[in-house]
C-alpha cells in the first residue's frame, strides 16, 4: 500500500498579531500547512495503522518555500516528499493545478492501472483559495473514484476504503475501491504533532523537487496563460463586523448587566461594505466580440435531498433569472433532474423558474454519486452546449462541478455570492469579449471579493448556499420536459454508498427564526438544558426563537442533525444569533456569520467565535445563562422588537 497526501502551504489564518499601526501585521504572518491538509495528513497516518509497512508520500505544488511544509509532514510521520515547483506554473487556476499535480503523480508511477495499490488524501479546500476543486480534479485526471468532504477513511479488510462523507444535514458511508482519493474536512481526527525523531529525519532528508519538464507536462494548459479562468478584479471587503464588545464585570450579574448596556449603546451589526478600488480606465475602442458561437442557454442541476428538490438548487433560479435578463431574451434556464422516479419534481422546478427540465431517470441513479452524475451531466453539456452551467455550492455541487469541468475543459468558479453578465477588455489582443459571465466570490478568509472570468464554454460556477433567496413560487407555471438517455459507464458505479444518514429535514423554522440560541460542545454539561431554557424564555416573550447546535454537539448525540448550524448543517441568518460554548470552528461560522448580530458566550477568551461576534461575555455558561434567562423573563429581548400579533 502507498499512502499519498497532497498538501498546500498557506499563510497562517487569523494571525492575531498587531503591527505598530494597530493593523494585522501580514509581514510577520507565518506559513503553515493548510488546516484541511493537516487533517489529510493525519488521515493518511491513521490509515497507516492498518498498513504498517505502507509507503508514506507527501506531495505539494508551489514555490521552493513549500519545502518547509513538506518537511513538517515528514516530521509527523511521512517518508518521501515531492514538490512540483516551476515558474511556468505561476498563475495556474484550479484546473491547471489539478492537471499538474495528477501529471506528477502519474510520473511517480501512480495511475488508474498501477499494480501497487494507493490511496490519495487531500484537504477539503485551502484557506487562501477556498475552492475545494483540486482534489476532484486530480481524481478526474487520474480517472479514479473519490470521496470528498470526508471525516475518516478506514479499510474494510477486503481491499476497499470506507469513507465517512459529510453531507448537508447528515453523512454517508461510502465504499471506494483502491486506488481512490479522499479529501478531508477539518473535523475528523486532529493532526498529530511532529515527533523529535521525525524532525531529525526531516532535517536529514531531501525533498525531491520537479520542474514541469521533469514530469513531461506541456505548458499549454498550465500557468496564467494556460488556465481556463482568470481573476479579473479583486476588491477589498472591509470590516464586515466591527470588533467584539466584551462585557466587563466581576460577577455574573454585572457581566450580564454590562452586555445589556452594551447592546443598547451600540447597534453593532453586520455591515457589508465592499470597497471598490476602481481606477476607471477609459473603455478603449476595441472591436466587441461575441465568442459564444452556438453555445446558448443556462444549465442548472437540481439536487435532491430527502425526496425533495434541495433548497440551494431552488435558490439557483434567482441568479439564473437575473442572468437571463442580462442576456438575449430567448435564453432559457434548462434544469437537469437526475434520479429514480423523480419526474413529479419537475413541477417544483418550473414553478420556481426553470423553463425546461432535462430528465434522466434510472434505477441506478436513485442516489447521487459523483462519478455517474459527472459523466451524465458532461454528456448533456456536450449535447446541449449551454453557455453557462450553474450548480449550488453544496457538498455535492462543489465536487461535481470541478469533475465535470475537467471533462469539458472548462474553468469553474467556486462558491459565488454574485453572478453578473459583463465584458472583458483584452488590452493585449485589443478586443472586448462580450457578453461574459462575471463570477464574484469572497476569498482570503472573506476579506476580498474576487471576480473570475472563464473563457471556455460552458462557463461553470457554483453559487453559495443561503446567499440567494428562493424565488417566489408561481403556482401552475410549467415548461417542457425532455428525457435524456445517457450512456452508462460501468466503471462509474465502482464506488458505492453503503448508508446515508440525514436528520429529518424539518426545523424549517430555523430559517425563519428571529433569534437562535445555539449551543456548542462547551454547553453540553447539562445536556443543553440551559440553551433550551433560554430559547423557551424568548419564545414565551413572543419572539420567533429556536435553539440549534454546533456539529460537535450532534456528534456527541445531544441533538439531531436538523438542528446543526454550519457548513454541513444549516445556513441561517437570524436577527440575533446567541452562541453559547461554541468555539467558532470555520465550518460553524460558515453557517451563521450572516446573522444580524452575534452574541458569544464562552469561557475561552481566545475562542474564534469572539472574532466573529458583536458582543461577548467570557465566562462559564452555567453561571451566566441562568442570569440571562432571568433578564429575559424581566423583558430583555436582545434588542428585538416584539410584534404583538405573534
Amino acid at each position, binding site marked *: 500500500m502507498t499512502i499519498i497526501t497532497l498538501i498546500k502551504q498557506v499563510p497562517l489564518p487569523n494571525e*492575531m*498579531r*498587531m503591527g*505598530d499601526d*494597530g493593523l494585522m501585521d501580514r509581514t*510577520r504572518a507565518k506559513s503553515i500547512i493548510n488546516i484541511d491538509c493537516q487533517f489529510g495528513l*493525519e488521515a493518511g*497516518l*491513521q490509515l497507516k495503522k492498518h498498513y504498517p509497512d505502507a509507503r508514506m508520500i507527501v506531495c505539494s505544488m508551489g514555490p521552493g518555500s513549500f519545502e518547509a511544509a513538506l518537511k513538517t509532514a515528514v516530521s*509527523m*510521520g511521512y517518508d518521501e516528499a515531492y514538490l512540483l515547483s516551476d515558474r511556468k506554473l505561476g498563475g495556474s487556476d484550479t484546473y491547471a493545478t489539478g492537471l499538474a499535480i495528477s501529471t506528477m503523480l502519474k510520473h511517480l508511477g501512480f495511475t488508474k492501472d498501477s499494480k501497487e495499490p494507493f490511496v490519495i488524501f487531500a484537504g477539503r479546500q485551502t484557506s487562501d483559495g477556498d475552492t475545494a476543486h483540486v482534489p476532484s480534479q486530480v481524481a478526474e485526471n487520474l480517472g479514479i473514484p473519490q470521496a470528498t468532504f470526508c471525516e475518516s477513511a478506514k479499510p474494510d479488510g477486503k481491499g476497499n476504503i470506507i469513507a465517512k462523507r459529510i453531507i448537508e444535514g447528515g453523512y454517508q458511508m461510502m465504499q471506494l475501491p483502491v486506488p481512490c482519493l479522499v479529501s478531508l474536512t477539518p473535523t475528523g*481526527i*486532529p*493532526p*498529530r*504533532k*511532529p*515527533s*523529535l*525523531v521525525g*524532525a*531529525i529525519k526531516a*532535517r536529514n532528508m531531501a525533498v525531491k523537487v520537479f520542474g514541469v519538464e521533469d514530469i513531461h507536462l506541456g505548458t499549454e494548459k498550465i500557468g496564467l496563460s494556460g488556465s481556463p479562468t482568470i481573476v479579473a478584479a479583486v476588491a477589498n471587503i472591509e470590516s464586515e463586523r466591527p470588533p467584539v464588545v466584551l462585557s466587563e464585570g466581576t*460577577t*455574573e450579574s454585572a457581566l450580564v448587566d454590562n452586555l445589556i448596556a452594551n447592546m443598547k449603546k451600540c447597534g453593532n451589526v453586520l455591515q457589508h461594505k465592499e470597497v471598490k478600488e476602481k481606477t476607471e480606465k477609459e473603455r478603449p475602442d476595441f472591436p466587441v466580440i461575441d465568442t459564444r458561437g452556438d453555445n446558448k442557454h443556462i444549465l442548472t442541476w437540481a439536487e435532491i435531498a430527502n425526496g425533495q428538490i434541495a433548497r440551494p438548487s431552488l435558490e439557483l433560479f434567482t441568479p439564473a433569472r437575473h442572468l437571463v435578463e442580462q442576456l438575449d431574451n430567448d435564453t432559457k434556464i434548462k434544469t437537469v433532474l437526475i434520479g429514480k422516479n423523480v419526474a413529479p419534481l419537475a413541477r417544483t422546478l418550473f414553478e420556481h423558474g426553470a423553463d425546461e427540465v432535462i430528465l434522466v431517470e434510472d434505477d441506478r441513479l436513485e442516489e447521487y454519486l459523483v462519478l455517474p452524475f459527472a459523466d451524465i451531466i458532461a454528456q448533456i453539456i456536450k449535447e446541449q452546449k449551454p453557455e453557462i452551467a450553474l450548480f449550488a455550492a453544496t457538498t455535492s455541487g462543489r465536487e461535481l462541478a470541478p469533475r465535470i469541468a475537467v471533462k469539458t475543459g472548462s474553468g469553474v468558479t467556486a462558491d459565488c455570492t454574485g453572478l453578473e453578465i459583463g465584458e472583458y477588455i483584452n488590452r493585449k489582443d485589443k478586443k472586448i469579449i462580450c457578453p461574459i459571465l462575471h463570477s464574484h466570490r469572497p476569498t482570503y478568509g472573506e476579506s476580498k471579493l474576487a471576480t473570475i472570468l472563464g473563457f471556455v464554454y460552458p462557463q461553470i460556477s457554483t453559487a453559495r448556499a443561503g446567499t440567494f433567496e428562493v424565488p417566489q413560487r408561481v403556482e401552475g407555471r410549467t415548461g417542457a420536459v425532455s428525457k435524456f438517455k445517457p450512456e452508462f459507464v460501468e466503471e462509474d458505479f465502482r464506488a458505492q454508498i453503503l448508508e446515508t444518514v440525514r436528520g429529518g429535514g424539518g426545523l424549517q423554522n430555523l430559517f425563519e427564526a428571529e433569534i437562535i440560541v445555539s449551543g456548542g460542545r462547551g454547553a453540553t454539561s447539562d445536556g443543553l438544558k440551559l440553551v433550551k431554557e433560554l430559547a423557551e424564555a424568548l419564545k414565551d416573550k413572543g419572539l420567533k426563537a429556536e435553539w440549534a447546535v454546533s456539529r460537535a454537539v450532534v456528534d456527541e448525540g445531544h441533538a439531531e442533525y436538523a438542528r446543526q448550524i454550519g457548513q454541513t448543517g444549516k445556513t441561517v441568518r437570524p436577527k440575533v444569533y446567541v452562541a453559547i460554548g461554541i468555539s467558532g470552528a470555520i465550518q460553524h461560522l460558515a453557517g451563521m456569520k450572516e446573522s444580524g448580530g452575534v452574541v458569544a458566550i464562552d469561557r*475561552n*477568551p*481566545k475562542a474564534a467565535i469572539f472574532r466573529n461576534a458583536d458582543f461577548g461575555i*467570557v465566562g*462559564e455558561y452555567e*453561571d451566566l445563562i*441562568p442570569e440571562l434567562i432571568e433578564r429575559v423573563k424581566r423583558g430583555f429581548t436582545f434588542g428585538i422588537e416584539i410584534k404583538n400579533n405573534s
Partner: protein
Amino acid sequence: MSDTNTVSTDVLIVGAGPSGLATAIHLADLLKKHDLKRRILLVEKGTAVGSHILSGAVIRVEILKELLPEVDFSEFPLNAKVTKDSILLLGESGSIKSPVHPPYMGNKGNYTASLGQLCRFLAAKAEEKGVEIYPGFAVSEVLYDDKGKIRGAKTIDTGVDHHGKPLENFQPGTEIEARITVFAEGTRGSLVKTVIDRFDLQKGRNPQVYSLGCKEIWSVPEGNIAPGEVYHTMGYPLNLHEFGGGFIYGLNDNRAAVGLVVGLDTADPTFDFHAAFQVWKTHPVAAKILKGGKLLEYGAKTLPEGGYYSMPKPYVDHALIVGDSGGFLIMPALKGVHLAIRSGMLTAETALSAFVKNDFSENTLKEYGTKIDDSNIYKEMYPVRNFRQAFAKGMIPGAFMFGTQLITGGAGLAGKVGVHTDVDATRKLKDFSGKPFKKRFAGKLEFDKILTFDKVTDIFYSGAHHDEEQAVHLHVNNPSTYHLNIEQYDAPCRYFCPAEVYEIHTGRNGHKELRIHAENCAHCKTCDIKEPGSGITWTAPNGGNGPEYQNM
C-alpha cells in the same frame, strides 16, 4: 517502538537561551579545534528560538566577542549603546535622581538589546557550526539508567487528553540518550528542579529566591526617549519592605522597554505584581515617556536572584547546569546574560575535557565548579553574595547591610547571611498587618487600556497559546486541601500570576473554587515558586506552546 523512537547524541542541551546556545557554540568550536566529531543536539520548547526569551535587557557585550571572536561586532543584533544611565528615587508623584550611582549598577559600555533577537542570531551561528537545534519540542522527563545516573531526557507525549490518556493522534515522545545532558532551561527549570531534589544539589546552600519581572515594549512618539537612554527607578510603588525597582530602556525605532521587577518575598498574599507594574507606569517618570505611545508586546519572567550562596551544585554524573537554571545572576547589576553565556562556555570546556578523557562522571565534570571559581563569575558574584539576603530585611536595613558588605568585600557583619524561601515570606490574611494591596492602591487599579492594561489584555500581547488537547500543565499539588489556601490566603496565585491563569470562581451558592486557565500561561513559573501550602507544580506543556515573544 522504543528502538525507533530513540535518538542518541553526545551532548543534549535543554533550552535555547543564551546559556544553552553558548554551550553549543563554544563546544562546537572546541571540538573542531581538537579535531573531535561529536553530536550536539539542542531542544527548545518555544515555537522558535527566542519565542520564550525575555530580558531587560542591557547587556555587557565583551562576552559576545569572546564567544564568537570571528564575528564582526557590528553583526551582533544589539540595539543601542547606553548613552545615559540614571537611577531615580520615586516618591508618589515626584522623583529625585540618586546622587550616588550605586556600584555594580553602572552600564557604561553596555548595550540595550532584545535578548530574543540575540538568541536567534546565536542559534543561526550554532547551526552553522553543526549544532542541531530543534525548536518546538518540550522535554518532560529526565531519563536515568539502572544505576540512577542521568542518561538523557524524553520529549513530551503529544496527542493525549486532559488526563494524559492517549488519543487517536497520539505521538509518543522521543527518548534522547546523551553522554552529557546540559540543563539550560532558564529560571526554575521544571526538569532541573527534579534533578536538584534527587541529587540534593542545594545541600548546604541557601534556597534559591526569585524576583518577578513584568515587561512591556512600547512604540513611543519620536522624542519621548532616545535609543540607549537607561533609567532605573527605586521606590514607588514599592514600600520599604519590598525589594525591587523599575526600568525604562530606550530602544531604536522609537521603542521603549519598560518593566518592574519585584522580589517574590512579599508578605501580602494579595500582592499583584502585574497591577503594581501598571501602577508604576502611571508615575510621571514612566507616564511621560509612554505618553502617546502604543503597547507592542507584554511578557513576564522570574529571575533567580539568590546569588552565590543560592546556586545549586551545578554538576552531577553526566549532567551540567547553566544559566538561570543554575542561578547565574548578579542582582545588584540586574544582569545574568553575560554570566549565562560564561557558564555555557565553561560547561563547554568541561564537556571537552570529558570527551578527551572519555569520562563523563562527576570526577571530570567537577572541573566546571573549579572553572566557575576561577572565572569572572566568581569575581562578580562573590563580592555581592549577601546582597539579596540583606534586602530580605527591607530596603533600609538592606541598604545598610549592603553598604557594610561593600566595605567588607561582601561579608557584611555576619559572614554568610541566610535567607528564607519566597513562599515562606507570604503571610496568612490574618497575620498580615500591612495594608492589603487593593486598599493600598485604591483608585489606581482601574486600567484605562491606554497607559495601563488589565492582565487579559496584556497577556494577549504576549501571544500566549496552548493546545486544547493535552494534559493540564499546572498541577495543584494537593487539590483536597486547596480550600485552605482560599480561606487563609485568598488564593495568592490569582493575584501574583501575571497572566490571569488562576481564577477563583464563586458559584451562585457561594462555593469558591480554583479554576485554571492554563492557555494563558506565560511560562514565568511564579506559581511553582510562590504558592503556599502544598503549592503548585509547573510542568512543560506541548512543544510550541506558551508565549510568542518577538523582541523581548
